[in-house]
């Protein structure tokens, strides 16, 4: 697969190396001549000095036969334009943009970028995971179908204690595939399973039912 990467900073550099190791054809475009010279030293003809938003540089890079364009500069506006020009001028089928301001995710999606990756958002979600007060933790969110995998720890004063699962009124669009007890015992729960204090409940839930699930298990 021919992949063009716009932006030869740290993300662009390591991405290029990983994709080359995986056997793909890769070209990284870096605007700044000094930075590009360092890339060329190591990557040879896989690095090109030029402006990844500029039609001339993109033509030189062979943009029209690229299957994927990944824009990973530190500036959201540059990443947006690189992806839009790749898509509309060169008909690149798949465009991926890094976004620095998490609020731009909505904008990028609306403007037709296929995938966005936000390191700020990723770090935020990791912080959320270790804050104890945030007792419903998002493990994975599938945004386009509105489904989340979440983890809830059963507190000492949980309203769910002492009653089997089937009596808790868990919403229909919410299933509990796994309970981890004592940190090492995996239980596949059924309707008659009783939760205990400290159990980690893994649930698959619609976004709409998240709040009810939280109330049922954590009060």
């Amino acid at each position, binding site marked *: 697969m021919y992949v063009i990467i716009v932006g030869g900073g740290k993300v662009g550099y390591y991405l290029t190396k990983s994709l080359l190791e995986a056997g793909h054809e890769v070209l990284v475009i870096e605007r700044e001549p000094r930075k590009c010279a360092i890339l060329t030293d190591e990557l040879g003809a896989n690095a090109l000095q030029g402006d990844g938003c500029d039609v001339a540089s993109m033509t030189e890079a062979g943009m029209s036969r690229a299957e994927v364009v990944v824009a990973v500069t530190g500036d959201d*506006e540059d990443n947006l*334009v690189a992806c839009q*020009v790749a898509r509309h001028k060169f008909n690149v089928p798949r465009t991926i943009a890094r976004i620095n301001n998490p609020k*731009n995710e909505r904008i990028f999606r609306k403007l037709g970028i296929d995938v966005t990756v936000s390191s700020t958002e990723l770090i935020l979600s990791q912080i959320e995971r270790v804050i104890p007060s945030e007792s419903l933790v998002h493990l994975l969110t599938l945004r386009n179908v509105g489904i989340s995998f979440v983890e809830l720890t059963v507190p000492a004063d949980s309203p769910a204690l002492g009653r089997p699962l089937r009596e808790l009124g868990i919403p229909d669009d919410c299933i509990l595939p796994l309970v981890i007890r004592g940190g090492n015992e995996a239980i596949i729960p059924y309707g008659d399973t009783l939760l205990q204090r400290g159990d980690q409940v893994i649930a698959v839930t619609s976004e709409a039912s998240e709040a009810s699930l939280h109330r049922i298990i954590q009060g």
Partner: protein
Amino acid sequence: MRIVILGCGRMGAHLAKLLTAGHHEVTVVDSDGAAFARLGMGFPGRLVVGNGIDEDVLRRAGIEQAEAFVAVTNWDNTNVMAAQVARDIFGVARVICRIYDPLQEAIYRELGLETICPTLWGVNRIQEILVR
């Protein structure tokens, strides 16, 4: 008319002064507060310091009530993104975007942005003068 101008360079500042003189309600946004010096003393419009592709900054500039948005920073990509945010996120009725690069301008014009390219105008005009 309520107008938000992004970029207080020579073009942005001059345009802002002309429009306020014509009794329009103008807000000028620039990431560099020092740029507002170009507006001179007693400029009657509003000034907002901030990054023009940031939704929150645009909101502070009153884009939700604006009838027109003009993107004239020195960076084509900033103008292109800000113009699309104004049009597609905030639904501003009239959006004008300056793009120096003629090739990029052609692409975004095709995508439905109202664009101006001073480079092309200059080139055409100079050619006209020279070959007349």
